[in-house]
């Protein structure tokens, strides 16, 4: 029983780290641009495919699929931001939040259907980063999962360092707090909106590349993690990167424990997402702003 519990805890941590990477990207976009990016799950999906094709077509080693996916998702996000989101920065645009939701929702539908058209509906599985399994006693974990968690933790650590220890991160934080104030101290806000959207996309792309060898790829693979990421962002506190990381780990763990110990295993997976929302509801009853949230966030 203890081995089973430990196995499930470890699996939950792996999922939690992946959720945290996706949610951290989403929360950066939300905290800086003040929009909910409904296309984030599709960028995650694109990251998986970019990694797959970088390995299959260019013959790159499996590990190089991750930076390739991050770079391509960064560029794809820049393209989305430059072509569709610039009206957000204009004082003439009213209801910017609504505009952001509608624009990114449209992009999500476009990307999902484009993926269906280009990649087909059959699941694809990229090669393993690291084949084999870690077996300690009765605890069993594939090395791909261990690698995904380790790389995810490394990415999150780098993100926290970037956000809180570099002038670029401080400038992002400043733009997120007040675009007006940032501009009078010499920060070109538009440049940092671009960076935030690209960075969020790169994180989603990395998560997509990391889960590819574990769950395989399909055009609709972004739907469930995207929904979870929204719950995680709210749970962590809208706009808080550390909050998103902690909430991601918590949701991953809770979801896995629920699936592992739900009395009817045949239905457990179906209810897993609902269980995360139950966790979210309980936390919000006690802390309406989430773990590290603030009351008001809207585009100036």
């Amino acid at each position, binding site marked *: 029983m203890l081995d089973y519990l430990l196995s499930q805890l470890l699996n939950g941590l792996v999922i939690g780290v992946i959720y945290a990477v996706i949610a951290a990207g989403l929360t950066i976009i939300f905290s800086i641009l003040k929009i909910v990016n409904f296309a984030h799950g599709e960028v995650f999906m694109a990251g998986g495919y970019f990694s797959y094709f970088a390995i299959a077509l260019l013959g790159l080693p499996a590990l190089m699929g991750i930076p390739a996916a991050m770079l391509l998702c960064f560029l794809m996000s820049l393209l989305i931001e430059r072509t569709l989101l610039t009206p957000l920065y204009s004082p003439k645009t009213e209801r910017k939040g609504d505009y952001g939701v509608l624009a990114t929702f449209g992009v999500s539908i476009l990307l999902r259907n484009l993926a269906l058209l280009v990649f087909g509906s059959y699941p694809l599985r990229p090669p393993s980063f690291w084949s084999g399994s870690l077996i300690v006693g009765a605890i069993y974990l594939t090395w791909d999962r261990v690698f995904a968690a380790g790389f995810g933790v490394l990415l999150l650590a780098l993100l926290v360092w970037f956000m809180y220890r570099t002038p670029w991160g401080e*400038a992002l934080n*400043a733009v997120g*707090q*007040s675009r007006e104030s940032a*501009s009078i*101290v*010499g*920060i*070109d806000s538009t440049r940092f909106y671009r960076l935030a959207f690209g960075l969020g996309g790169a994180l989603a792309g990395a998560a997509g590349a990391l889960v590819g060898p574990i769950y395989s790829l399909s055009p609709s693979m972004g739907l469930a993690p995207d929904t979870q990421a929204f719950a995680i962002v709210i749970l962590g506190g809208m706009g808080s990167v550390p909050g998103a990381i902690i909430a991601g780990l918590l949701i991953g763990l809770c979801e896995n424990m629920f699936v592992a110990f739900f009395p009817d295993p045949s239905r457990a997976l179906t209810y897993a997402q609902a269980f995360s929302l139950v966790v979210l509801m309980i936390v919000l009853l006690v802390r309406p702003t989430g773990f590290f949230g603030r009351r008001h966030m809207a585009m100036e």
Partner: protein
Amino acid sequence: MQPLIEARGLCKRFGGILAVDHLALSVQQGELVGLIGPNGSGKTTTINMLTGHLSPSAGEILLRGERSEGAAPSSFAARRVGRTFQITQLFSRMTVLENMLVPGLARPHSHRAEATRQARAHLEFLGLAKLEGLQAKNLSGGQQKLLELGRALMLDPEILFLDEPFAGVNPFLRDEIIGLIQKLHAEGRTFVIVDHDIEAIQRLVKRLVVMARGAKIADGAVEDVSHDPEVLRAYAGV
């Protein structure tokens, strides 16, 4: 001598309202200018255009002789134009020191240690040194005004536009701010100050520009402008 900043035929139209009407204004290096006028006379709109926060509908802005109308506020800040706002615009969830460091670190080739040293020197000068660890939102209104001035100083500005620096400030702190502005001016910095506190402005500046209904109605020495019949009519209703 080339003016530090100059506006030629500057206009700003909001729908059917002409908020600034063909304004001509030039400020020389080292001047301390007061910009006054009744509510709605276009003072803040003018400095918003002169610092890049609004694009003029017509006219030219020359910063050190270079055409600059329509440039972004960050571009003005990079060219050593600082400003403060009527309602302070701080990074409210950052500490006092962090607020000071943002402009310091935003400058090219900046170093944290050097920026921190400069920030602490400015905080000392402004009397905010003991509050460096406090979040900006927890400062009093007057302290927030001082911090905004300090943050502008981190740009090492040649010219500073202060929008109502004495509004909502107690008389003691007002005198302190006047003293600080005088010291900074003595160091060679140029100021354009917009305020309704005529007494404070008269104590501080040598040149007054008066606006009414978007147009400049007087520009000259304080003594001359204060007795100008058109100014008395437009500004004081006399």
